[in-house]
Structures are given as C-alpha cells and as structure tokens.
C-alpha cells in the first residue's frame, strides 16, 4: 500500500523548527519589553526587569545555535532558481490566490527563500551586536561608539526579524496545509503539486512504494 502523502519535514526537522520557534517567542517578547516603554509590561512574563535583562541574551544565543541547525538542513533548497524571478514578478497574483501565470517553483517559493536569508542575516546581526551590548560579559571589551552602533543594529535587526516572523506565521495560516506540514510532517500530493510543483516532480520521479520519500533540504 503506497503512502499517498509526501513527507515534507522529518521529525528532527520539525523538532528543530519548533524549538527555534519557542526560543524566538521568548527572546522576542523579552526583547520587545526593552524595545519600547509601551511593552515593558512584557518583562513581567520573565520575572521582572532584571530577570528579563539577565535571560534575554541567553535565550538569544540558544535560539541562534538552534537556528543554525535549520540553516544547515535547509540552505541548499533556498538557493534561487530561474523560475523564481518570474514568480516574484507575479507575486501580486499569488497574494490574490490566483494561480494562472504563476510559474512552478521548488521546495520553497522565492518569498520563503527571501525570508530564509533575511532571517539568517538578522540572526547574525542580532548575535554579534548582542554580544557587544551584553554588559555582564562583553561590553567592557568595546568602545562606546561600537556599543552605540550595536544597540541601534540590534534593535533594527530585532524589528526586521519580528516583522519577518509575522509574515511567516501569517503565510502559514493562509496557505492551508503548511502548519500541518510543520506539525506532523506530511503534505498531500495535491498540496505539493499546487504549491511546489518542481519539488513535487522531483520527489515523485523515482517513486518507490517500499520506502517513503525522505528528501533532505
């Protein structure tokens, strides 16, 4: 009996993704507490202002390390291909749920790819600027101008990251089948063909019912 669904994410990939997601929420909420006075109340979620200040950098570092796991597994599938340019030009149709004229794309659409590289860039900026402004351990090694730049870049990268994740979460809710793909791993054949046709063709080309498809990347 052939499995009629396609495995999009392995158990390890799903676990890795959701660990990053949990850490992101903790780091983002504690970061937003310090971002603007209107959100300082979020610091109560972490046991008050000093605890927020103590925990936030550790959350960030753990998030970065876990995120590297996702990068290693997914970066290959996030290189741009020739169809991506046309897809991006027709992103308006994609947003209106119109399929006509939207070219087939690989495992990730160009929007997802842009998100991937944006997240990676933000994570790198957040890590390095975060180390510079980590008073307890590292700030003493940096001059005041570096620290001021790091403060600014950290806030900016955090802002871009939060904005990107809002888009990411909404896209998952909008494209039905995406959330379950990341929760239990499987997508329907129709889903794969509709949203990621090149990937669908690739994983079904050498279809062998004896073992399910486990394509990496």
């Amino acid at each position, binding site marked *: 009996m052939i499995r009629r669904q396609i495995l999009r994410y392995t158990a390890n990939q799903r676990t890795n993704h959701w660990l990053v997601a949990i850490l992101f929420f903790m780091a983002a909420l504690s970061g937003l*507490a310090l971002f603007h*006075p209107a959100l300082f109340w979020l610091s109560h979620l972490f046991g008050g202002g000093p605890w927020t200040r103590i925990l936030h950098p550790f959350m960030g570092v753990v998030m970065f390390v876990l995120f590297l796991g996702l990068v290693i597994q997914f970066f290959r599938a996030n290189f741009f291909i020739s169809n991506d340019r046309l897809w991006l030009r027709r992103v308006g149709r994609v947003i209106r*749920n119109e399929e006509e004229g939207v070219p087939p794309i690989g495992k990730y659409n160009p929007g997802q790819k842009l998100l991937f590289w944006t997240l990676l860039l933000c994570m790198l900026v957040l890590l390095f600027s975060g180390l510079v402004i980590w008073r*307890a351990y590292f700030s003493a090694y940096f001059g005041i101008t570096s620290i001021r730049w790091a403060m600014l870049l950290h806030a900016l990268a955090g802002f871009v990251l939060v904005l990107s994740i809002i888009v990411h979460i909404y896209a998952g809710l909008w494209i039905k089948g995406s959330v379950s793909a990341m929760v239990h791993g499987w997508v329907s054949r129709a889903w794969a063909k509709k949203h990621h046709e090149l990937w669908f063709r690739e994983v079904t080309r050498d279809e062998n019912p004896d073992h399910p498809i486990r394509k990496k990347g």
Partner: protein
Amino acid sequence: MASQDIIARSATTTVPSSVRNQEEVAKLIDTTKCIGCKACQVACSEWNELRDDVGHNLGTYDNPQDLSADTWTLMRFTEHETDAGNLEWLIRKDGCMHCAEPGCLAACPSPGAIIKHANGIVDFDQDHCIGCGYCITGCPFNIPRISQKDHKAYKCTLCSDRVEVGLEPACVKTCPTGAIVFGSKEDMKEHAAERIVDLKSRGFDHAGLYDPDGVGGTHVMYVLHHADTPTLYAGLPGSPTISPLVELWKGVSKPLGLLAMGLAVLAGFFHYVRVGPQLVEEDELPPLKDPAVHEVDPSVHTFDPRGEDRP
C-alpha cells in the same frame, strides 16, 4: 509621600507627578581655584557610605583611576604646556553633569529608573534599575557605572538627599578653597561671570563658563581657564550632545517600528478576511495509479527476454 517634583521619568510616556515647582539648582566647579586635594572625593565617599577597592598607582595623581559604582566623583589631573612654554596643572572634578536633557534618561528602558527633578537633579532609582547599561550608552560624559556587586547603575546624585532638606552637596561643604559652590542656577551663573571677569583681568583671555547647550545646559558647571578648548581638561567634551546613534535608536524609530509591527498583523488579518485562505482541492490531481497493477498500453509491444507471457 510620593515625589511631586519629577519633570522627566525614564521609559514613561505620560506626564510624571510634577506639580511641585522648584528653583533650578547648580553646582559650580571653579577649576581655577581647585588645588586637587581630593577632599571632595572623600566627602562624597563619607556621605554616601561608599568605599571603593584600593587600586594601584599608575603613575598619575588620579586616584582611583576611574569612576566606578563606588566612586561617584574623581579629580582628573592634566599637565598642560601652554604656547609660552609654561606648565599648567589642570585639575577637573569629574562626575555627573546633571544635564537638562539627560542622555541616560532618554536611553533607559525601565520606567522610573532614572528621574529628573524640577530642581534639575538627575537621579537613578536603583529599585527600578534593571542593570542593562543603556544609560552608559546614552551618556555623553561617560559617567554611569554598573556595580559588579548588584548589577545596578550608579553615579553622583548631586546629594539629592541633602539638597532635598536644604543642605548643599557634601563635596561643596568640604571644599577648602571654595572652588565648589552650590546654589540656584542663576546665582551660580552670576558668580561664574564675576570669576571670569577676574580671570580675564589676570591674562586668561579664554576663561569662560562650561554649561553646554548641546545637552540643554547642565546643573554641574565649570569655570575653565581655557573655555575655548574644554578637551584639555582630561577630555571634557567640547560640544557634548546625545549621540545621533542614540537619538535614532531611542527617537521616533521605535514608535514607528511598533506601528509597523501592528500594521503587519492587521494587514495579515484583513488579507485573510478579504482574499481568504489558500486551499487545495484534493481532486485537482488524478488519483495515483497503484503501481502493483502493471498496465500495458495495447499499442506498445515490448520484448520480454525471459519469454514469459506476462500481461
């Protein structure tokens, strides 16, 4: 009783309790009268119950070497050679300048950890301090220090506890030469003007008052012999301002950032409402043929090497 004289409060977007009016005060430090005795350092340490660690002599008179969470004021000594070849010993009592527009307060993310009183004193409230060190980032004068003991920020309070009950700051009380005086800001400016006239009459053509506009003026002011080059005095900033990086970081960009995040969430919601979810019709794809059943196109003839006549 709550303080009723707070005219600025960190990370607070409403008006703090500020009905009580007070005259602006200032401490005037006359570097031309200072003899570098460090009595002010001792008085500060005595009144505030601070005992810094004994450090090392690094070949200068500066002792300790730098401000710390336990050293809120410090004499900084500079040996300056004038154009005429004379040696001048410039001694500046360093410490919080109590800016009218404090960079520390602008940068602080914790509500009420830094407050500015109506009399101009900028005070840290360690009960509300979270120890992030943003005040250090914001300060144009490199004053606040985080204690390694409790991870709270400390600096000169201008003896706000003494001033509140009508006393002058401890350093002022102890200064043996009258180089440090305290009073209303207006009076101090007047006093400084008299001093400057005197200094100019004695050949210090560039004598002047240091009350920098870049931070809205300060409530600790200096009389300098060389007011045209304040940096001579152990790097006293010539025209201190809150760094543009800090202004950008703490200015209009953050409310706009919050707005953008909120709009992104709203945009998503209304996209869903107007365009709707992207659903997959499961019958869009023809049902997969069962590969266990081998169907042969009757128009295609294949050669079977094993000679078995399989369907």
